[in-house]
């Protein structure tokens, strides 16, 4: 952990606790975030299940192939929702209270994004439960751990992205932009099929889209084998995305006073 963050840990902890109220104290608040990726997971499995007949999927069970995308979709949307919540806090004036306090800006950001990483575990838990119930392959403890790292890491990056946009536009009207950004990043990957089956532009985009690396890392356990070769690019991508997007969010926070 960053030493500065360690010193300010109590501040981060109270901000995380406050952000978790959104889920813990509003009845049913977690449902939309859980429902959408679960419906997509079940729907895509039912609709595109026969695609595995094309070969090259690494499995005959489409649900084992698609679960990784649904996990990242849930975490991406949960992270983007953090941006929507921040925009609401800015509109309501609550964020001024934090900015007028002596809490360092990175601490305020950390409070928001860590809560997003934790909240992303809720849709992930539901998806995995439903997935195993309909026959998703057991990824093994290491594969499962990597899936969770991917889910929490992408939620952190998505929260930074959402926060950066919230700080730029300062209105909840920017919500579609936050969600659409994550939608594009997560789905313009090898989401529906392996790279060799992707058509034209999507083949190119999926190759350069860094989230493809995260998806391959998350997916590998469910397809049977976990290798370092499929893991390190994903870890590196998460670190880079978080670093870059956090820098944007912090710059946005500094510019709030302009």
């Amino acid at each position: 952990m960053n030493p500065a963050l360690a010193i300010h840990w109590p501040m981060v902890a109270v901000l995380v606790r406050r952000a978790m109220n959104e889920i813990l104290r509003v009845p049913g608040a977690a449902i939309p975030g859980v429902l959408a990726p679960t419906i997509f997971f079940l729907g895509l499995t039912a609709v595109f299940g026969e695609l595995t007949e094309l070969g090259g999927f690494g499995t005959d069970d489409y649900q084992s192939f698609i679960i990784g995308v649904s996990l990242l979709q849930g975490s991406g949307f949960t992270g983007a929702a953090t941006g929507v919540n921040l925009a609401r806090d800015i509109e309501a004036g609550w964020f001024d209270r934090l900015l007028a306090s002596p809490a360092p800006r990175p601490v305020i950001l950390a409070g928001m994004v860590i809560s997003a990483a934790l909240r992303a575990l809720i849709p992930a838990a539901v998806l995995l439960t439903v997935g195993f119930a309909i026959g998703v392959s057991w990824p093994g403890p290491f594969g499962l751990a990597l899936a969770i790292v991917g889910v929490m890491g992408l939620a952190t990056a998505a929260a930074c992205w959402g926060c950066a946009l919230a700080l730029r536009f300062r209105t909840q009207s920017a919500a579609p932009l936050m969600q659409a950004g994550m939608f594009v990043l997560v789905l313009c990957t090898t989401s529906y099929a392996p790279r060799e089956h992707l058509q034209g532009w999507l083949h190119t985009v999926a190759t350069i889209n860094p989230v493809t690396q995260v998806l391959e890392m998350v997916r590998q356990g469910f397809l049977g084998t976990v290798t370092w070769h499929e893991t390190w690019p994903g870890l590196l991508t998460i670190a880079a995305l978080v670093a870059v997007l956090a820098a944007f969010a912090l710059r946005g926070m500094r510019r709030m006073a302009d």
Partner: protein
Amino acid sequence: MAGLVANARVVASLGARSVRQTFRRPQLAAPIVVFPSLLLAVQTGGAGGAVNLPQFPEVNGFLDFMLAGAMIQSCLLAGNSGGIALAVDLEMGFTDRLFVAPVSRYAIVLGRLAGTAALGAISAIYYVVVGLIFGVTYEEGVGGVALMVLWVTLAAVAFGSIAAAIALRTGRASVVQGMFPMIFVILFLSTAFFPAELMQEPAATVAQYNPLSFVVAGVRDPVVSVVTGAGALKAFASIAGFAALGLGLSALAMRRRLRLG
């Protein structure tokens, strides 16, 4: 006659307000245009290899097949957005202002649906243009395209009336917004994205009997094959069924709302 003209003007002006409102609020416009477009792009690029599956129907390309699904998805979401906007009007008290005006109360709902119809038509034309840009061949030509726009416009009114009924009954935007995931359940359980014969059970069986599949087929036929009387009749009957359900429920909800105040 004068009353009819006055109500028609109210419907037209409320419809225009509804369209303006949608394009001025990104939250309402994005689900209608942005998300179906992104999903269309990703599904076409990602699952396009499906046309190589032996049982897949003869089409010029996967986009030709998917276009109808995107249009129906868009008009379902347009209907839902209209319902959300109506519920927001109810929450903010804007409809009370209209209720005390000397116009038919049903004109208020019809005004909203007129706006939804316009959004349906706009979205249909948008996807037709998208199709043209990316190489879709419209087998039935201009007449077929006109039929597609007609089906999508009518479907938008039908789906919008169901959302309006929920808005009028509950008066809460969050409840109508909560229908969003259900739209995808209905879509995934239809032939919007894939032929029924290639879907997994039990979704395949549900899709065969889902009236939404008939609407999708009605919109898809002019692109990928030929328009048949039977197909058009099924599409029309399905849309009429959805509209009857929505308008009936809307009338009941409106009556209840006016009774309870």
